[in-house]
C-alpha cells in the first residue's frame, strides 16, 4: 500500500511541476529546439506503447484475448470518425460480447 501512496504523491508533485515549469520558471523562453522536438514526440511513442501493453500484455507475457477485439473495434470506429464515446464504450461492449460467447 505504501507504494500506492508514494506513487500518488510523487505523480501529483511531478505533474504540477511539469505544468508550472514553462509559465513560471522559463518566462516564455523556448527550450532548445532538439529537446522540444523530443518532448513533442514523447506522448505519441508512450501512448502507442501503452496501447500495446494494455491490449496484449499479461504480466511478463503477450496474449491475444477479447481486449484485442475491443481495441480493434475502437480503432476502426475512430478511423471512420465515430465519436470518442462510441469508440470507447463500443470497445468494452465488443470485448464483453466476445467473452460471453466464447
Amino acid at each position: 500500500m505504501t507504494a500506492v501512496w508514494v506513487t500518488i504523491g510523487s505523480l501529483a508533485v511531478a505533474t504540477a511541476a511539469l505544468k508550472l515549469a514553462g509559465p513560471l520558471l522559463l518566462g516564455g523562453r523556448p527550450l532548445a529546439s532538439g529537446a522540444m522536438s523530443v518532448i513533442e514526440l514523447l506522448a505519441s511513442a508512450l501512448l502507442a506503447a501503452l496501447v500495446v501493453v494494455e491490449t496484449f500484455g499479461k504480466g511478463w507475457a503477450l496474449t491475444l484475448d477479447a481486449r484485442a477485439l475491443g481495441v480493434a473495434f475502437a480503432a476502426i470506429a475512430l478511423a471512420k470518425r465515430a465519436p470518442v464515446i462510441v469508440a470507447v464504450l463500443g470497445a468494452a461492449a465488443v470485448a464483453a460480447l466476445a467473452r460471453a460467447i466464447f
Partner: protein
Amino acid sequence: MPFGIAVFAIAISFGVLARPTMGAVAPIVMSVVVFSGAAQFGALAVLAAGGGAGAAIAAGVLLNARYLAMGLALAPSLLGRPTSRGAFAMTTVDASWAAASIGDGSFDPWYMVGVSLPQYVGWVLGTGIGVLIGPALGDPRAFGLDALFPAFFVALLFEEARGRRRLAAAGGGAGIALALTPLLPPGLPILAAAAAAFAASRRRS
C-alpha cells in the same frame, strides 16, 4: 468537446479497475491531486502488474512530460502575477489546452479553464462512482472494462499522432513495447518506448 462524456465514463472505469490494486480511497485521492488519465492509468498498469513505485512513477512522469511542452507553448499567453499564471497553468489538460488554442500560437486562458473545470468534476465524480460500484460489478472483465482503458488510449493516440514524425514515434513505441514485454519487468517496456521519440525526432518532418 469530443472527450467530455468519455472522460466521465473513463473515470468510472478507472475507479472500478483501480480499486483491487489501490483500495477505495487512494483512487479518488489520485484523481483529485493528479488529474491526468494517461499518468493515472499508466501508473495503475505498472502497479497492478506487480511493478514497484519507482517504475510506476517513472511511467507516469514520462507520460506527462508533454505538459512541459504544452506549458512552454502556453506561457506567452498567461499574463499577470506568478500566482495567477500558475493557477491558469495548473488547469491544463490535453483537451482543454487544445480547445483553448486560438491558432496563431496564442491561447485563451479563460476558455481553457472553462473546459477543464467540468472535466475535473466529472473525473473526480466518476472515479468515486467507479470505486463504489466496482465490488458490486464482480469481474470487470465480464463488462469489457479492461478494453475500455486501451481503447481510450487509442482515441488519445488518434488525436496526438498526426504527421509523419509523430506516426513514426507511435509505430516505434508500439514495436519496442511489443518486443520488450516478454523480456522486461512490467512498466519498463513503456519507459523504453521513449527511445522511439528520440529516434523519430532525428527524422526530417
